[in-house]
Each structure stands twice: as structure tokens, then as C-alpha cells.
């Protein structure tokens, strides 16, 4: 099992409960969805898995090791694409890619692969802030995945995108799945989930209320 989340409970200061007894898992080679309304706790789960936020109770295992005990280098096998694209907007696309190539200890070959795969060659010298939302999202995905991570978490990767960019990104995500990689996607758009995911967890007010197998031939 690539990722296993066991009985996670998280509270903010003052006792406000954000996550209640969350359990789910991701196998290598599958795309798993996390669907829920805004504020349901989707982004918080991703922050916890990536080691940015802490939780009070429960355990998370990544490739069999507890996530809290992973070194910085091991944690870089987990990539996160946040809802806000997390790019350096005043920098050019090339500089952003450079920064994240070094951050993930990736090679120039990996960088070139991302540039070609996400069709970024023509915009390398442009500043990120001058790109459309769709282009920015493609750059953000390239920056997140340049290190060839084992687990990729994408927070609303297709939100606010036009049809063309949405298709490009969905095709890219589908092309990335391999027997070694697992992908976790959050969204509140059930159509995207149906197209991409094998399994979907429904999150409501910090609790996973249902797990669904997606039937690609319609319905679930």
C-alpha cells in the first residue's frame, strides 16, 4: 500500500474539530478522489499528509513508514499541488521550473520531460503572473511533478479552467499513472472525479461518509 491514513483526528486551537476519525488508503497505480464541499477538510488532509500541518491523533503510513518519521528527502517523494498554484509569480516559468527542479533534486531530463509533456516550451521566458489561469496551472503541475514523486496530491487541479486546459490537464494526469505512482485528487466537481478516479471518498464536515468504486461505464 502506498499511503494509509488511519483514524486521523485534528482540532484547531479552541477545540474546533476539523477532521474526525479519517481513514482511507491509496494503492500505487490508482487515482483516488476526495470529494466534498468547501470547508469539508480536503485541503487539510493534504497538508497533513505532506507534513505541513500537524494532527492530534491517528497515524499515516507512506510506503510502510510513518509519515512523521520521514526525512526531508523522503518527504519530497510526496508532491502537492495546492489550490492556489504556489508559484513565484514575478519569476519566469523557466526560473520557477529551475527552483522546483532543485527543490525536488530532479534532473534536467525530468524538467525537459515536463516542459514537453505540458506544452510549456513557448512560455518559458514569460512571467507567471502574465499567464492565463490555465497556463499557470500547467506550470504549477510541472513544478509539482518534476521530481517524479511516488504520491501526487492535487487540490482542485481543474477548477476555474477553460475546456481546453481542463482536457489537457486531465489527459496529463491520466498519462502519469503508472504502477509506482498513486494520485490523490480533491474536487467538488463529480464529473472530473468520474473521468479520473478509480475510487472516490466523500468527505463531509471532516468525516469520510462514503467510499465509492467508480464505474467508468456510467454511474457508480
Amino acid at each position, binding site marked *: 500500500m502506498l499511503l494509509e491514513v488511519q483514524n486521523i483526528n485534528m482540532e484547531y486551537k479552541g477545540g474546533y474539530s476539523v477532521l474526525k476519525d479519517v481513514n482511507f488508503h491509496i494503492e500505487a497505480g490508482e487515482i483516488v478522489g476526495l470529494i466534498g464541499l468547501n470547508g469539508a477538510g480536503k485541503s487539510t488532509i493534504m497538508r497533513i499528509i*505532506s507534513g505541513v500541518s500537524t494532527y492530534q491523533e491517528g497515524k499515516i503510513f507512506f510506503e510502510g513508514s510513518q509519515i512523521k518519521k520521514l526525512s*526531508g*528527502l523522503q518527504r519530497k517523494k510526496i*508532491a502537492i499541488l495546492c489550490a492556489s498554484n504556489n508559484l513565484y509569480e*514575478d519569476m519566469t516559468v523557466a526560473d520557477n521550473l*529551475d527552483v522546483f527542479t532543485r*527543490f525536488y533534486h530532479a534532473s534536467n531530463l525530468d524538467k525537459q520531460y515536463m516542459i514537453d509533456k505540458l506544452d510549456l516550451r513557448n512560455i518559458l521566458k514569460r512571467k507567471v503572473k502574465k499567464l492565463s489561469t490555465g497556463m499557470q496551472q500547467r506550470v504549477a503541475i510541472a513544478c509539482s511533478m518534476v521530481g517524479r514523486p511516488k504520491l501526487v496530491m492535487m487540490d482542485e487541479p481543474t477548477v476555474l479552467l477553460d475546456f481546453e486546459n481542463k482536457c489537457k490537464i486531465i489527459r496529463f494526469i491520466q498519462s502519469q499513472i503508472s504502477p509506482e505512482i498513486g494520485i490523490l485528487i480533491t474536487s467538488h466537481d463529480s464529473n472530473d472525479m468520474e473521468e479520473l478516479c478509480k475510487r472516490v471518498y466523500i468527505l463531509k464536515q471532516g468525516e469520510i461518509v462514503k467510499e465509492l468504486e467508480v464505474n467508468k461505464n456510467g454511474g457508480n
Partner: protein
Amino acid sequence: MALIIKEIYFMKSQWKKNLLTIVALGVVVYYFVINDYSNDSIMFIGAYVPGMIICMQLIQNSIEFEKENKTFEKMLTGYSLPSVLLIKCAACSFVGSIIGYIFGYITFLNKNPYSEQIITLKVLIGVLVLMTVINILMSMIMTLLFLFIRQTLTINLILIVFISIIILIGMGIGVNNNIFSYVGPCGAGILLLSATVAYLFRFISNDKVVY
């Protein structure tokens, strides 16, 4: 290394803003050069003040940007918050000090064409070392300030007061051989303070920069 490269790229992307500040500082320093202030004041205002102001600006830009664009979140997946902050402080104070040295050299030479007769190597090294450690301490204090105060107006007011105090000090005191015989104790004291502030970084929660 990735964090250092990131800071360098970030500074490069902000070059217009930084250049504007350097030009403005040039005008202020030139005012002191032509208005017959003492060598001591010129040295302080011409070297320390520009270095500190550039260092503060770099830290402010960097932290505000990373908070607003939530890029801290990305960095924290691979590094701890104290290491991200310390590298930021080191990079900004290093660049601030380099600019301070250049400013100091130009203004002092401008004032004293035969400066090598006035300023000894010992004093020069003292000035440089002290400037670097002051910038390191200041960048750390500024980091805490920018992380914990959310209102830009309050931050800007604090900066204006702080810079005014530095300039007033510069107009009153200065550099001479006697003062720089205390460089060792002064530098050690400042470094000790810096280590204390660096230790405090360990207690800042990630939530402070992520939410």
C-alpha cells in the same frame, strides 16, 4: 542549496523595486556627503544604513510574497520552517551587506580620496564584520515582525521609525579606531542575540505561515 537558489531567483525577479531603493538611498547618502558631515557619520550612514535598508526590504518582500502566494506551503513539504527562515535571513543579510560595502566604499572614497591614510585595514575589517552580523540579527528580528504582524501599515510605520532612529544615530556617532576596538565584544554580543532569535524560530508553528 535549493532554498538559496530560490532566494536568488526571487531577488532577481524583484530587481526593479530593489534598484529604485538603491537609487533613493544614493540620493540620501549623497546629501550627507555634500553637507559636510564628519567622516564617522558618513561611514555609518553611507555603509550601514543602505545595507540595513536593503536587507529589510529584501526580507519584507520575500516573506510577504511567500505568505500571500502560499509558497511557504510548498517549501515546508521538504524543509522545516526554521531552515526556510534562516536561509532567507542569511541570503538577505548577505546581499544587504554586499550593497552596504559598495555604498560605504564609494561614499568614503568620495569624501576622502586618500582614504587609505585615514582608515586602517583593521578598522575596515571591523566595519565589514560588524555590518554583516548587524544585518543578520536585523533580518531575523524583521522576519519575526513580518510573520507576526499582519497589518502592512503597522509594519511600514515600525520600519520608518526604525530607519529614522538608525539615521539619527548615524548623525550623532560614528566610526573611529576607539569604537572599533570593541568590534569583537560587539560582534560576539550581536551573534549571541542572533543565535537566541534563531532558537526562537523553532517555536513558530507552520500554521503561522500557511493559513
